[in-house]
């Protein structure tokens, strides 16, 4: 009974429930109502349960379980420790909101298709849970590949469109490049003893060189899944291609399993973290962050834009982790723990607000059929509830207090401010510069979301000629709204009560690095005050902040009403007295990015055609492409084609030649094996 009520058994049960729901959808394939009314809501409930089990696991010692499944003599090992518990909580709580939303979102899907989506969706969820539960490389890789495949099939749900098939293929390709690197990394870690349990990998003694090789492989492999540059190319293609709840799940949760893998391998399995690795992570993280946000600013497809922001946020998470590795490498576990906490906090925050934003984008798509920002406008009047939830997500991702994005950026800044501890002068002066890039990225994100919100929800409908955004079905449906409300509440919860999450993450940090925040930081200042180092060094109290800002705003309102009046007259917009205004004179998404193109021009590959002064029908075209395609992906693709065409010479298509190859191989082997 004790085992059954444990978080490990509970999590396993949830994963199995998801698998059962997946299969049950197939049995009742003719009945779309089953998926909508039973599978997705039950999946959401299971998610809530998983979040509770994960939360419990953070506070308990690690538990292990061996399942007699898998290959003979190679059973599955399961383990739940605080790190896995934290990520299980993330998976459960965020997927709960998304599943509820999915129940409403797929209301118009045909039965057969919906059964298939439900199958892939729940297998996807279960495989992510198994990635987090795995305690040996074998189960980990099986779950990892299941996750990649199930999400691949979800991405190509609309496989009739060639662009989507192409996006799916790119995703599968890079996912497998990453998987190979991860496999090799486990190979390096295990050092030839034939035991692939994580315990054995942990115990292995590596020379610094081999440890660095393992780090590089893990960073590459998991980075490919996370979407860090230059391996990000699949992300802005694949995430928008999927149905919106799946985009939310991929951007919100799946890329976080890559962060989990990175932390698990680097902090736990390799163990001895070196500061040089931290610098690599920092440089790649800062590059990823700036690249992501600068390309997001250039997008006018809402879901693509959000996908680029996922790239950016992975960069922010990597900054936190990188700083943590630098501090741990120099022997400052408390500051290292703070960086790790900042990174993991942002992981959770990003899951919540990016999930929310993708769901909002889904509701817009559902109601108006639009994904292109340049066709939207004034949606706040027809979809006020969606507009409200989307605003919360937009403010959260822009790292504005008192919502959750700000808390994790604040913690990252505080980590950077611990830099006087470091002995190395160069590194000491570099860390604050990384913090400055974070500030830049934060402000650029705010700009980008002013653009998104201002163009989609505010203003007036653009282009009334071709298809105004008059929603076919009004505001988002009930289930869709519940899903968004759940995640929006998460933005507030994580933003206003950070101390409880800080304590939780401190447990995770202690279990991984052995060092945590100081006692004073954890208990001295009470639950209202967030003070990671010491109260007089830095503190932030979002709750008081929020209460005061609401209070003074309301006070201002009532004072104005009390002493003056609330009279309003309505008229046409003034606009400096400009007489003829049309809705086409508003900024478009591309117009909004113009100043960015001007300032950061060399970073983009731009193809622009401007109308001449005498054109009768002036037209303007702008195409922005990712430079990585041209200096990295296309050369690699050409090289791969060249090599395979050379190798193809071996393939003569005649059986006698193939027999000759076998013969030569056998002879060669006989030389080696006496």
């Amino acid at each position: 009974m004790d085992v059954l009520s444990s978080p490990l058994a509970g999590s396993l049960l949830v994963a199995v429930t998801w698998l059962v729901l997946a299969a049950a959808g197939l049995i009742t394939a003719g009945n779309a109502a089953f998926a909508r009314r039973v599978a997705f809501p039950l999946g959401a409930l299971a998610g809530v349960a998983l979040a509770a089990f994960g939360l419990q696991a953070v506070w308990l010692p690690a538990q292990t379980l061996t399942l007699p499944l898998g290959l003979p003599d190679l059973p599955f090992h399961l383990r739940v420790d605080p790190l896995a518990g934290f990520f299980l909580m993330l998976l459960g709580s965020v997927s709960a909101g998304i599943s509820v939303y999915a129940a409403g979102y797929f209301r118009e899907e045909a039965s057969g298709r919906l059964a298939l989506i439900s199958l892939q969706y729940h297998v996807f969820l279960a495989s992510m849970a198994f990635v987090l539960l795995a305690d040996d490389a074998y189960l980990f890789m099986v779950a990892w590949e299941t996750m990649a495949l199930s999400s691949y099939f979800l991405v190509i749900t609309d496989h009739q469109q060639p662009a989507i098939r192409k996006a799916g293929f790119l995703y599968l390709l890079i996912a497998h490049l990453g998987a190979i690197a991860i496999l090799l990394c486990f190979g390096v870690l295990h050092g030839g003893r034939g035991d692939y349990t994580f315990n054995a990998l942990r115990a292995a003694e590596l020379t610094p060189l081999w440890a660095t090789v393992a780090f590089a492989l893990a960073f590459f492999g998991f980075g490919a899944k996370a979407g860090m540059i230059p391996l990000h190319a699949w992300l802005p293609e694949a995430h928008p291609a999927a149905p919106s709840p799946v985009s939310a799940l991929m951007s919100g949760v799946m890329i976080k399993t890559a962060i989990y893998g990175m932390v698990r391998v680097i902090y736990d399995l390799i163990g001895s973290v070196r500061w040089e690795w931290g610098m690599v992570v920092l440089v790649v993280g800062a590059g990823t962050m700036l690249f992501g946000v600068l390309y997001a600013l250039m997008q006018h497809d809402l879901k693509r834009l959000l996908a680029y922001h996922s790239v950016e946020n992975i960069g922010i998470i990597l900054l936190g982790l990188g700083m943590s590795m630098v501090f741990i490498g120099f022997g400052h576990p408390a500051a290292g723990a703070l960086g790790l906490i900042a990174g993991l906090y942002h992981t959770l925050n990003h899951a919540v607000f990016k999930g929310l934003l993708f769901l909002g984008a889904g509701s817009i798509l559902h109601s108006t059929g639009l994904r292109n920002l340049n066709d939207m406008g004034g949606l706040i009047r027809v979809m006020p509830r969606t507009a409200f939830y989307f605003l919360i997500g937009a403010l959260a991702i822009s790292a504005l207090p008192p919502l959750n994005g700000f808390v994790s950026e604040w913690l990252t800044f505080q980590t950077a401010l611990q830099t006087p501890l470091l002995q190395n002068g160069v590194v000491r002066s570099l860390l604050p510069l990384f913090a400055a890039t974070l500030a830049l990225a934060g402000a650029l994100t705010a700009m980008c979301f002013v653009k998104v919100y201002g163009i989609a929800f505010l203003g007036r409908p653009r282009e009334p000629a071709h298809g105004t955004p008059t929603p076919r079905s009004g505001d988002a449906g009930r289930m869709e709204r519940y899903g968004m409300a759940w995640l929006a509440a998460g933005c507030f919860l994580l933003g206003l009560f950070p101390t409880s999450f800080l304590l939780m993450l401190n447990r995770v940090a202690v279990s991984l690095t052995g060092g945590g925040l100081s006692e004073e930081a954890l208990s001295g200042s009470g639950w209202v005050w967030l003070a990671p180092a010491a109260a007089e060094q830095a503190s932030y109290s979002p709750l008081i902040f929020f209460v005061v800002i609401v209070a003074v705003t309301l006070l201002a309102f009532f004072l104005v009403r009390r002493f003056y009046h609330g009279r309003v007259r309505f008229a046409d917009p003034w606009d400096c007295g400009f007489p003829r205004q049309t809705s086409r004179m508003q900024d478009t998404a591309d117009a909004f990015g113009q100043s960015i193109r001007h300032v950061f021009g060399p970073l983009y590959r731009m193809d622009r055609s401007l109308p001449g002064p005498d054109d009768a029908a002036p037209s303007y075209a702008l195409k922005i492409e990712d430079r990585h395609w041209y200096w990295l992906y296309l050369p690699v693709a050409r090289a791969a084609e060249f090599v395979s065409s050379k190798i193809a010479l071996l393939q003569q298509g005649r059986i006698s030649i193939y027999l000759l190859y076998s013969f030569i191989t056998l002879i060669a082997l006989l030389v080696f094996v006496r």
Partner: protein
Amino acid sequence: MNYGPGIAFQILQSVFVVLAAPLLVGWVNQCRAWLQNRSAPSILLPYFTLAKLFHKDAVMAHDASPLFRATPYILFGCMWLAAGIVPVLATDLPFAPAADIIALVGVFALARVFSALAAMDIGTSFGGLGARREMLIGFLAEPAMLMTLFTAAFISGSTQLTTIVDTLAHREFAIYPSLAFAAVAFLMVLLAENARIPIDNPTTHLELTMLHEAMILEYSARHLALIEWAVAIKLFAYMTIGFALFVPWGIAEAGDWSALPLAIGALVAKLALAGAGLALIETLLAKLRLFLAPEFLSTAFLLAVLGMLTHFLVRG
């Protein structure tokens, strides 16, 4: 711990800042008029303008959303909050630990995002133009601002503005070369963030050059009054942040009522000088082309970085 006097001081200070802020704007305008050989308006003119605006009926576009109507109050609330965090007359304010300098930058960013959103709400061409330019200046200024604040934070070992002031004003007297760089950077950021020449011209309605004004074109009456007032508080807050970081002398400790006259005297003197200096800058310089703003603000950023590196090199 007895919070009583501290809280009284806190409320007193934030009300003082809110009420005194238009006076500073009046003073700057007066100085500028003198410097430009014009006859100066009364120093109280901003108050009269506010009173006039509050009495008028608001005119609003037909399809203004609730966000448009709420934004003036949110802006005012944000600035009021900022007025409560910055140690203007005294340090050790009980509310100050709720938000350190990073959160303070966050408050200003929050206000900026809301004003840019409200600008886009009506759907006019100028609104979008203003929002776009304001956010451009915002993302250029924010890293420079944080670097400046980090330099001060490294010197005092804290991001708490009150602690920084305590360290710099009460404990030891020393001249920090790093702060000299930071001060110049801060001044440049102050000009940009407060829509002053050379980045923006607060007196222009020339549509092609305006930034801040373009955003608030659609506002009238009490909403406009609240925004103008919030802008005044923001200038006041920025100046007092500058005083707190670079010339903190004369500030009183919480509950120390006897030091209050001195603190007020010091503050008035500093503000008078800073306001005159601002007017001088605005008279001597011309507005920069919009796309020179990145150069201006990246200079500010580099100066701030130099300040920080100087701190690490010479430990001071």
